[in-house]
């Protein structure tokens, strides 16, 4: 089993004729993802990567291919428009890889998508992969994943790969891995994804990868405290050594004062029973220990 994607997921790639779009569409196809089309305005009627049809609009792509998921690789200035177009065309799962989307745009996008019942993953995220369904909608290196029963959810991109790599090295497969994105406003939160993993019978445990800034990890802890998620949780928070007051890439520490610190997040999650990996180098080992405890 899995969350968000499964064997019926039919994916279109918005921005498929761009450098990144073509490259990653190819990688997704090679992984086994059912990429049914692409969208680049003005390029409708052509094909790319030998056989993938390109459409001028998402609506046309949906009408022709029955797509039910979209992945977005367009420049930041056009990303909001692209997400809105996907939702307007009725796509229920929209994954936006683009980084640098202005937060003001995301204020409107998240509301628009919510009102239309669309789930947005990202922006500024690596995407979603379910190894058991050979469905990869994102930019993660597919070969590091193995089918299994541990869910992964993360605000980070490459740190997620690190975690997955360690899990696989330790013989632990993944049900679904979700990068929710590192921007201040993203479509889907830890809480949303934990809720989905809680309801997925074949996910036995979850690895949560947080980082400094914001309060999303504390919200996850609150959700667990309220009983929304009761399976084992392994957590790691990046940025323990980051000097306060400096903005480390996408991590913003302004709003919430001390709550944004790694130590506060670690504490909040440990209090509700999460097992904390001391550094990102020990995610695999920590997960092995937790899972051994389960089967033991």
């Amino acid at each position, binding site marked *: 089993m899995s969350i968000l994607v499964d064997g019926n997921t039919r994916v279109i790639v918005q921005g498929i004729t761009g450098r990144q779009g073509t490259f990653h569409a190819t990688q997704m196809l090679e992984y086994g993802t059912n990429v049914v089309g692409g969208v680049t305005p003005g390029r409708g009627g052509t094909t790319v990567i030998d056989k993938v049809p390109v459409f001028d609009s998402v609506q046309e792509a949906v009408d022709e291919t029955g797509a039910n998921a979209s992945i977005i690789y367009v420049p930041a200035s056009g990303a909001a428009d692209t997400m809105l177009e996907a939702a307007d065309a009725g796509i229920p799962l929209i994954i936006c890889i683009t980084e640098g989307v*202005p937060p003001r745009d995301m204020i409107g996008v998240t509301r628009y998508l919510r009102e239309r019942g669309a789930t947005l993953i990202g922006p500024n995220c690596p995407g979603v992969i379910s190894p058991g369904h050979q469905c990869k909608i994102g930019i993660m290196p597919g070969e590091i994943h193995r089918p299994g029963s541990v869910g992964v959810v993360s605000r980070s*991109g490459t740190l997620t*790969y690190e975690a997955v790599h360690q899990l696989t090295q330790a013989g632990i497969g993944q049900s679904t891995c979700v990068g929710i994105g590192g921007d201040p406003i993203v479509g889907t939160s830890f809480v949303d994804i934990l809720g989905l993993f809680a309801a997925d019978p074949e996910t036995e445990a979850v690895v949560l990868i947080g980082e400094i800034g914001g309060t999303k990890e504390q919200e996850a802890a609150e959700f667990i405290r309220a009983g929304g998620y009761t399976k084992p949780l392994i957590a790691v928070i990046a940025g323990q050594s980051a000097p306060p007051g400096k903005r480390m890439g996408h991590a913003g520490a302004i709003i919430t004062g001390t709550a944004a610190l790694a130590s506060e997040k670690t504490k909040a999650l440990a209090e509700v029973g999460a097992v904390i990996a001391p550094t990102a180098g020990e995610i695999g080992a920590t997960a092995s220990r937790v899972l051994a405890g389960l089967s033991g």
Partner: protein
Amino acid sequence: MKLHEYQAKELLASYGVQVPEGGVASTPAEANRVAQRLGGTCVVKAQVHAGGRGKAGGIRLVSTAQEAEQAAAALLGTRLVTAQTDPDGVPVGRVLVEQTMEVEQELYLGILIDGSAGSPVVIASRAGGMEIEEIATESPELILRVAIDPVVGFQPFQSRYLSRAMGLNADAAKALTPQLTALYRLFMDRDCSMVEINPLVVTKEQRIVALDAKVTIDDSALFRQPAMAELRDLSQENRLEATALEKGIAYVKLDGDVGCLVNGAGLAMATMDIVRAAGFDPANFLDVGGGADPERVAETVRLVLEDPSVKRILVNVFGGIARCDDIARGIVLAMPKERREMPIIVRFLGTNKEEGKRVLQDSGLTIHPIADLNEGVEVLRRLATP
């Protein structure tokens, strides 16, 4: 991107927010002229991108134009060191000369984006003048938060609520609403990531005036805010960080000697955490970013090399949207012949990792390939103990 106080106040005024009368000066003579216009008694404020100016002597109260000139002369051309700056401080290129005013009440006001709510939020407090972190620690009950609905914007009823909760009288409350409405409009129009007015004061005449102003424009929106982008003052930023920023690279200068070249902010922070946990100190935080091509990677590497403290480099790249071969080619492009001996510890995983490794192995640079981060720590130790 931060604005200077005088830039922020000009922006505020253009939206109808009341600010003290005054003018900016880049010479003592100019400061004298502004002070004369204001009638002598005024305040001379160093224009730097750092808090803590007052305690550092960057804000001077004077009572004549002559004194204003002297204060300006004492500040202009110097570097101001405050609790928030590097030890070598930031250069004072301009001073803001402003009228003083009779203040009845000092408020704190901030607008930012609340990521969890996905909307802007107004933060306010009657404990103006203190830093918000200080208020949060000492009297969190004095911090008011009002979420703004993006369809309807900031509403008068929210201003009335804040006025009541901050104990404003009827006249001041009436004056507050248009000021907050204008500030919110500015915040949205200009793609701000933060507007902070501290203190926002109630004058004896029950006017509401922004006595100080910090405005930060979201870097990701500068492409559509050309007028704001022009206000950037790179002299206020760490030279390397400023160069990085100009190139769109997320780089933060730190104190150690291990230059870090990592893709992804999360992995970069995690790598720093591991380096430090092993007893070493990273020279920088650096995210080479997602779609880096070789030329951009090369620029990034040059940035790391420009920091004289860097003795060795740790490359940790997990290819996704970034490709290991692009990163490798960028490293080869950037490394000057005379520094080929600098040890480069490299871990490549993910997209095109094999090709990346091949590029480096064939380059003639001093490459130490590693399989995981623990092995990287071992190599660091080996290199550190000759």
